């Protein structure tokens, strides 16, 4: 027998970070939710909805759940392998590096430094830092596996390995971007290809960051808390391989009825439907582990949290395939239904499993009893009620709005012609969400207090003594043994096998679209953006307009009746990045430009950005005064043109020299049209010059360009 010590100090660090970032991330979410009820809560530019919605998602996914993953992995990995972590320094680099990345996100996202790609908003220097820290995590984990004392790798570790491998692949492929300057980049891919890669990433961020590592935690902590082995270890093997094999194909279900090629959409649907099998296999395996132990669920708070978590996992993974069916997706896509769906997963599955794990871990590491079981039980009921109060109204809001968009009068016109009519209806649901969210955060705060008191009364055990026999070095396979047992003993082989399995789906899904440009029919009228429009587009990205406005008119009658001609793949070939969006809190903007159905004037946009409620009473859009006040920064315009050319946008050589002349002409025209309307004759040349250099003019130039190229004469060169 060898004596050694488990490192609890690193687990403590991650656990405290989980609690702190969890409450922070939820509070940001609560703030964002309040902004949709009271637009005045958009107090400053850096607190506006478009900027803090990504902060909420990033904080909850990467800070709360991310630290939760590390807490659970660092605790369970050592014990499942009967060894201390490979290297304490690596553990600490992993911890501090991850916290610094989160801090960078907390600073940059409210400043509007964003790539706009959902759950991948962080700019290129932070992307590089994420890659490095992730490698440190993987290195430390695989090193630990190699020096283990057990013969085999328990199934939880397979989930951890798959998480490490796949997140690395996803992050690298989705972050292929060319830096323009510090904290600004353009993605290599454009339009449809960018959308496909982004949602291959986005979907698998859910799969391999929010799901597989937590399934690993489930396979460790549920048997631990119930004090019995998992219901069926065989089922867990099928669960693992089937899940990672299928998940990677399902991304295109986020892009149904869009300009993505049909074959890719169908592939996504087919695999999404099949996903229900392994997901429910896993859920049942978790729940059935408790067979005959339901008295423990009644008596202990840890298992209560875990049962709700696993049930929420089952609900989300039933709903996911359902939502990927085209007929359901038509109603649900772009509505709050999706927000409710992800919050069943986030609040239910990730949140409750994390709480259960913390209530189990903290008293053990501090060698004491939980400060108050009563308070923990109260947390459980408040959190459960909070989830219901959050999700039920938001599901309802989704149905209501989705149905309202589709209603036609007998004469073939839309019942709710004005998009705003479908927004004002949602106010009471949004208010109920704020209440539900407040309850959930109250519960989490109670947990923080309870755990703090537990820590205060206990004595922390930084190095936990353990004993185990060393691993047999020249282990010979029993004759009857199957080949997989060998793979399980060899982490290197296991990593490669996992990589192959996830790359199969990824490759078949993505390669045809990326490599073959003929997949995207070109439209001869579609031309690159002018320098002013490009700058306007970057303001659109900075403000996170895509968080509330889609740019994708689907080829459906109720869509074309509302917005005009449906969006075509060829219209997005110069869009680095694509800005299709995933949620319509406001109307679609792809046909917002000149010559389309809306055909709004430049001055309308100007007044609307200044005070949306004045122009559209009842609107929940924030005011964008700062865009009107601030001068446009043109110091990087030439670099942006060069960067765009280097990734295939056909700006002529030497175009940089003409950039400012062209911007001057276009911006003066817009400024003059605005002043003409707003000031009648009471303006002169100096007013035009003052206005034309403002950010608002660039933004209007971009908005007026949206979806307008198809009206150009195909024979005329612009």
């Amino acid at each position, binding site marked *: 027998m060898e004596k050694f010590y488990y490192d609890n100090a690193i687990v403590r660090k991650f656990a405290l970070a989980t609690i702190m970032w969890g409450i922070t991330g939820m509070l940001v979410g609560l703030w964002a939710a309040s902004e949709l009820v009271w637009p005045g809560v958009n107090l400053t530019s850096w607190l506006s909805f478009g900027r803090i919605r990504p902060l909420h998602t990033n904080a909850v996914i990467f800070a709360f759940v991310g630290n939760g993953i590390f807490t659970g992995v660092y605790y369970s990995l050592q014990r499942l392998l009967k060894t201390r972590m490979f290297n304490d320094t690596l553990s600490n680099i992993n911890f501090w590096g991850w916290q610094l990345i989160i801090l960078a996100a907390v600073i940059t996202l409210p400043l509007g430094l964003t790539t706009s790609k959902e759950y991948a908003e962080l700019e290129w220097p932070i992307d590089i830092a994420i890659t490095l820290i992730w490698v440190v995590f993987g290195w430390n984990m695989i090193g630990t596996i190699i020096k283990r004392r057990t013969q085999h790798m328990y199934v939880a570790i397979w989930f951890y390995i798959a998480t490490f491998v796949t997140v690395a692949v996803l992050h690298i492929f989705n972050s292929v971007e060319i830096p323009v300057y510090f904290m600004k980049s353009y993605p290599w891919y454009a339009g449809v290809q960018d959308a496909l890669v982004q949602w291959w990433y986005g979907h698998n961020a859910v799969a391999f960051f929010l799901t597989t590592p937590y399934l690993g935690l489930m396979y460790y902590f549920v048997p631990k808390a119930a004090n019995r082995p998992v219901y069926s*270890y065989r089922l867990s093997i099928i669960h693992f*391989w089937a899940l990672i094999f299928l998940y990677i194909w399902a991304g295109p279900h986020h892009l149904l009825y869009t300009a993505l090629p049909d074959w890719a959409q169908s592939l996504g649907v087919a695999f999404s439907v099949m996903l229900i099998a392994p997901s429910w296999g896993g859920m049942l395996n978790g729940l059935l582990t408790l067979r005959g132990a339901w008295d423990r669920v009644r008596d202990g708070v840890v298992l209560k949290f875990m049962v709700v978590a696993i049930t929420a996992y089952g609900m989300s993974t039933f709903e996911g395939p359902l939502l990927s069916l085209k007929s359901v997706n038509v109603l649900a896509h772009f509505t709050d239904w999706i927000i409710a769906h992800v919050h069943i997963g986030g609040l239910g599955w990730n949140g409750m499993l994390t709480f259960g794990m913390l209530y189990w871990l903290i008293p053990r590491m501090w060698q004491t009893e939980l400060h108050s079981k009563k308070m923990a039980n109260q947390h459980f009921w408040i959190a459960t009620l909070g989830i219901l109060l959050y999700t039920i109204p938001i599901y309802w809001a989704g149905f209501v709005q989705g149905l309202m968009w589709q209603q036609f009068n007998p004469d073939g016109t839309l019942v709710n012609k004005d998009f705003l009519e479908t927004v004002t209806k949602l106010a009471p649901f949004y208010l109920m969400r704020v209440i539900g969210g407040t309850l959930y955060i109250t519960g989490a705060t109670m947990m923080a207090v309870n755990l703090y008191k537990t820590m205060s009364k206990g004595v922390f055990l930084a190095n936990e003594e353990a004993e185990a026999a060393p691993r047999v070095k020249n282990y010979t396979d029993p004759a009857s043994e199957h*080949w997989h*047992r060998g793979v399980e003993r060899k982490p290197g082989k296991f990593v490669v096998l996992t990589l192959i399995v996830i790359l199969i789906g990824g490759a078949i899904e993505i390669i045809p679209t990326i490599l073959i440009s*003929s997949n995207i029919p070109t439209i001869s009228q579609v031309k690159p953006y002018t320098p002013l429009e490009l700058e306007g587009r970057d303001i659109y990205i900075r403000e996170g307009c895509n968080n509330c406005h889609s740019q994708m008119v689907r080829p459906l009658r109720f869509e074309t009746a509302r917005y005009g001609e449906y969006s075509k793949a060829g219209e997005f070939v110069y869009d680095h990045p694509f800005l299709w969006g995933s949620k319509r809190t406001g109307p679609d903007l792809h046909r917002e430009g000149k010559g389309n159905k809306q055909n709004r004037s430049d001055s309308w946009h100007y007044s609307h950005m200044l005070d949306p409620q004045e122009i559209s009473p009842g609107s929940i859009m924030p005011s964008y005064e700062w865009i009107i006040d601030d001068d446009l920064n043109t110091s990087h315009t030439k670099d942006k043109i060069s960067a765009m050319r280097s990734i295939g946008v056909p700006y002529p050589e030497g175009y940089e020299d003409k950039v400012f002349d062209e911007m001057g002409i276009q911006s003066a025209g817009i400024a003059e049209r605005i002043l003409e309307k707003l000031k009648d004759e009471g303006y002169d040349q100096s007013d035009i010059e003052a206005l034309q250099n403002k950010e608002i003019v660039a933004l209007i130039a971009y908005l007026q360009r949206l979806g307008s190229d198809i009206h150009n004469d195909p024979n005329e060169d612009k």
Partner: protein
Amino acid sequence: MTSIDGIEIYPVISLVIFFAFFIGLIYWVFTTNKATIKEVSQYPLED
């Protein structure tokens, strides 16, 4: 779709990979050694 040369092979390849993968998986799971399964499933409970 028709614009990509030889794309017809894609769905066929996908189906073959998919089938082979799951047949292999099922075969392996049902032929694994019961004692090993039992041993490994006890891992979380041995601290």
